[in-house]
């Protein structure tokens, strides 16, 4: 059973449309949601998500995102994650941030590699929020072994060298790394970056336990075509 996750930028394009999109995800029984808390310098993101982040930051801050997360939790019944950047956590206070997003199942920090994860892991685990690790085409076997041993929830497998919004290419290197990552690992390996449509999902799911769609979902939400887009994925 291949899982489908959707990434949404918190309160983009506005609060109403964002919450409506969450309801659509609930109705379609999307397996998990990632709610992006915008950052001023999102270096892991491509244009679509960066522009959405800048737009939201014009009018909102972390207090608003935390409030909205609670509303999302009330609507969405499956797994819920927060995705952001290290300084959104650090600059707000890691402990305070962890406590405020307690209703989430996990946290994904785009510029937090495994080697720097220790200082963040503790406060989040205190509040039952799992820190999600990344694996990429650049990861070595030793890197993947460490991440297998310390992951309490899914592993986010970045499909490509690049930012969000690129194009998925399932080459031999990627396939063999996905295979190695899955071997002997009892959590999900979720493929992200570059997943756009039903065909991508079908291809990706041959080698992973699921996918997450970000840029394409954000674009469709902005174009008022979110419902039809989600429907087209099934």
């Amino acid at each position, binding site marked *: 059973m291949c899982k489908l996750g959707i990434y949404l930028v918190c309160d983009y394009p506005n609060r109403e449309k964002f919450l409506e999109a969450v309801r659509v995800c609930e109705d379609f029984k999307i397996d998990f949601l990632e709610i992006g808390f915008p950052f001023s*310098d999102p*270096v892991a993101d491509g244009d679509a998500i960066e522009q959405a982040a800048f737009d939201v930051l014009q009018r909102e801050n972390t207090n608003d995102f935390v409030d909205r997360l609670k509303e999302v939790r009330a609507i969405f019944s499956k797994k819920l994650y927060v995705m952001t950047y290290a300084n959104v956590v650090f*600059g707000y206070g890691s402990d305070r941030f962890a406590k405020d997003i307690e209703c989430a199942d996990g946290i994904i920090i785009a510029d937090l*590699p*495994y080697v720097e994860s220790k200082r963040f892991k503790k406060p989040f685990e205190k509040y039952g929020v799992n820190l999600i690790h*990344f694996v990429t085409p650049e990861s070595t076997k030793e890197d993947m072994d460490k991440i297998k041993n310390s992951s309490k929830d899914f592993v986010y497998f970045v499909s490509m060298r690049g*930012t969000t919004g690129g194009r998925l290419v399932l080459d031999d290197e990627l396939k063999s790394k996905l295979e190695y990552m899955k071997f002997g690992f009892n959590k999900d390996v979720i493929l992200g970056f570059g997943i756009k449509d039903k065909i991508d999902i079908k291809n990706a799911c041959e080698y992973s336990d699921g996918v997450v769609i970000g840029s394409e979902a954000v674009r469709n939400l902005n174009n008022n075509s979110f419902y039809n887009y989600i429907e087209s994925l099934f």
Partner: protein
Amino acid sequence: MNGYFGSYGGQFVPETLIKTLRELEDAFFRFKKDKIAKKEFEDYLKNYAGRETPLYYAKNLSDYVGFKVYLKREDLLHTGAHKLNNTLGQILLAKFMGKNRIVAETGAGQHGVATATASALLGMECVVYMGKKDMERQEPNVKRMKLLGANVIKVEKGSMTLKSAINEALRDWVKNVKTTHYLLGSAVGPHPFPLIVKYFQSVIGKEARKQILNQEGRLPDSVVACVGGGSNAIGIFSGFVKDNVELIGVEAGGESLELGKHSATLTKGRPGILHGALSYLLQDDYGQVARVHSVSAGLDYPGVGPEHSYLKDSERAKYDVCFDGEAIEGFKVLSRLEGIIPALESSHAVGYVLKNRDRFKDKLVIVNLSGRGDKDLGIIDSLEGNNV
């Protein structure tokens, strides 16, 4: 090596870059020990870049302020700023690693020009990211980069200054990590960049220490350098950090010390994470990086190198500000008294010494004159009421 200076530094980057940073660290340590590589680097510094640069006793300026001021003349280095020390070094390192493409960011354009220069010399493909605002205010350097064969890419996102240029260079690097070396120009970024940049810039401090001992028979009382990211400052400080010499980093006070109107990261910021490192950062209460301002494009940056944060907290160095107007005063005074037109960045160090002349009474002071100011004539011209 854990990649930290005290509690500052680290590698806060997307996981994709970790393996490359490991390889870079490993290659850098091998490069430092490699006698042939070291000799090649020293040869380029001497015969191509024009090292050593003079330590000039600025007699007229000294008479004007009432104490002895020496200028470390990095403005006389080929391309007109200290940046070439680092770009020659890092491009040799990139070749050592088998990379054939260079990406770089630039603010004032001095690092971009130095990168384009060393790329032309050593046969590297060169891409420079530069904010739209900086391309407009530092146009002569854009022309120079293009002439040198660099592909200059205009960044029209975010602040459209140095910070945005670094964001884009990082994105390029993540995408092209197998073939490309990211040539960071300041002592910022993830480990091992702050160490690498310091290593290549430490020649400034080594020379200055030897030169002042030759000329004055003693060490200076104070060493003053401007700090944006902090590469020229860390370069000259490194020569004196073990001595009983006061080290002063001068940040851009901009128009005032209200958030958004200056770039005085160490003076007004608090620890945060940007561009791969934990260091002082100008940010709001929620960790969003603040807008900053400086009349000088090279100092117009909300972060600072992690070693400077460490030097500040350990009180080994002092950091203070020079406002836009005071820097312009430094620019004019040095031009008229000594016939040396300093870069607006370096003018902050000069302006600081001028405004604190009472504090330096009877002292022996070295100012790191990190660059020349030809590139800034347009800015000076356009400032209202400034009749150069």
